[in-house]
């Protein structure tokens, strides 16, 4: 069963966080081991991020998170670091699809993106569409994902989704 409630401490980033910042292109050619590549996540803007981050932590960012390359390594390293969810004002579309495809929860919420600060403790409820800021005692609301994406996320990602449906043999 898909986990729909996440609680964690926030790492705050700005807008236009691109995939080269998330994981530099040069890091992805040497190995296929995502845990190894993940050591270099966000190295250009937050030194030793991979050592500081804790299981279940949440990333909160501004608009256009994940813009740039199509590299799936970007959401994969974030997931490999134990980040439970990303909240942003908006996401670049390839990153958005990639995150859902690998089963990483993402939430689009402008208010949360503006009000949440680094270090805040938040609780996200995907079913209810709510984010509780436990530090500031505030609550923000977001629109749930489109149906197609919910189905993929519920299946655990695109791989199990396509395996279960023999490709795209699904009722539209």
């Amino acid at each position, binding site marked *: 069963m898909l986990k729909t409630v996440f609680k964690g401490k926030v790492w705050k980033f700005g807008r236009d966080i691109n995939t*080269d910042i998330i994981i530099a292109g040069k890091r992805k050619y040497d190995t296929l081991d995502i845990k190894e590549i993940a050591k270099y996540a966000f190295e250009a803007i937050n030194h030793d991020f991979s050592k500081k981050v804790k299981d279940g932590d949440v990333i909160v960012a501004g608009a256009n998170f994940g813009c740039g390359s*199509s590299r799936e390594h970007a959401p994969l390293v974030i997931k490999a670091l134990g980040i439970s969810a990303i909240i942003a004002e908006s996401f670049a579309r390839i990153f958005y699809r990639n995150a859902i495809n690998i089963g990483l929860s993402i939430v689009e919420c402008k208010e949360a993106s503006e009000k949440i600060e680094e270090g805040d403790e938040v609780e996200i409820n995907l079913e209810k569409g709510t984010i509780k800021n436990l530090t500031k005692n505030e609550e923000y609301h977001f629109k749930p994902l489109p149906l197609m994406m919910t189905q993929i996320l519920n299946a655990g990602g695109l791989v199990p989704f396509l395996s279960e449906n023999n490709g795209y043999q699904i009722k539209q």
Partner: protein
Amino acid sequence: MAGKTMAEKILSHVAKKDVEAGDIIIVDVETVFAHDGTAPLAFEEMKKMGVDTFFDPNKVVIVTDHTTPSPSEKISNIHAFLRNYCRENGCNFRGVGRGIGHQLLIEEFVKPWTVVLGADSHTCTHGALGAFATGMGSTDIAGAMAFGKTWLKVPESFKILVEGELKSPVSAKDVILKIIGVIGADGATYMAMEFFGETVNSMGISERLTLSNMAVEAGGKTGLCPVDGKTIKFLAEHRRKGFFKNLKPDQDAYFSKEIAINAAELEPMIALPHTVDNVKAVSEVGELDVDQVFIGTCTNGRFEDFEIVAKILKGKKVANDTRLLVQPASWRVYLKIIERGIAATLIEAGASINPPGCGPCIGRHLGILGDGEVCLSTQNRNFKGRMGNEKAYIYLSSPATAAASAITGRITDPRDFYH
């Protein structure tokens, strides 16, 4: 009922039903591509889906372009794995020095009125030939390689009307930099950018490819150009003879955003570090020394680009403290610049020619920058660390501006060198 955008027309054709922006559809994929940076993960995901053959090997293209020829043992092993995998599964494989995947797709595979997917964000390039072409991650690409289908949300479209005569050496690159500077790095997120107007009509295919190539830098899902006589002629000259219907948006199509650009008034443009939408006119930059100039990539590595560069460099020398790297986008481009004497002009001026591929643009080899260095490149992206060093500064311009700047050793308006 409102008329249709180009995106709606192509996707209605492919879905074999009437679709409009907002519809979620499952469609057949005509061409699917991945490269040495993204194919290994795609094959791994395909295996996890329980599929060990391609839906149609003739429609799958794998290119080792991001790091070619291999600069390390580890990458050589990845290349060997890809080569063997493609041989065993019978798909198209383009190896060392053949060129950038996007350029090879343009020269050999892409057809208008089809869906083209690539595990590379710049797959939007192929919209210039009237294909609904978009970049996706390795898992989506694995699904397409295994089953020959994908799901798409029919995007809303952004109308980009370009009118007026471009004054050489101002080119398509200046047009698209201007557009991104105005609408921003997320100005077209989730949308199809549709380029049209008299300027686009008078552009050759090479210039249209430059426009479409950078759609993703504004967040665009694809960048479409009309299909006209020039498109059909280009396809016929590149192994795709046949009947392809013209494409343009209906007069009464609904566009959720629009912008008009007056090409006649446009100056040479430049994007400053570290975002593509940080755009100014070259004339506004002031004195700025350049350590490396790089001319090539899927944005501006075609014959027509080097033709302009040679015109500016002819009989001149690259500045002493500046290096000029040139990289043809494919072996066909390379051969043509040799045959036409352009390669000789560039080498005499002091350029170093890299083998066809992505090279310095993705920061793995063949021209990595030093700490604090400034590079002026014709590529599409100037993110921090993009060219292999997060302490370097990347500026983006047209081939003409790059060539003029290589001569002076500082950012230079090419109009001073173009008569």
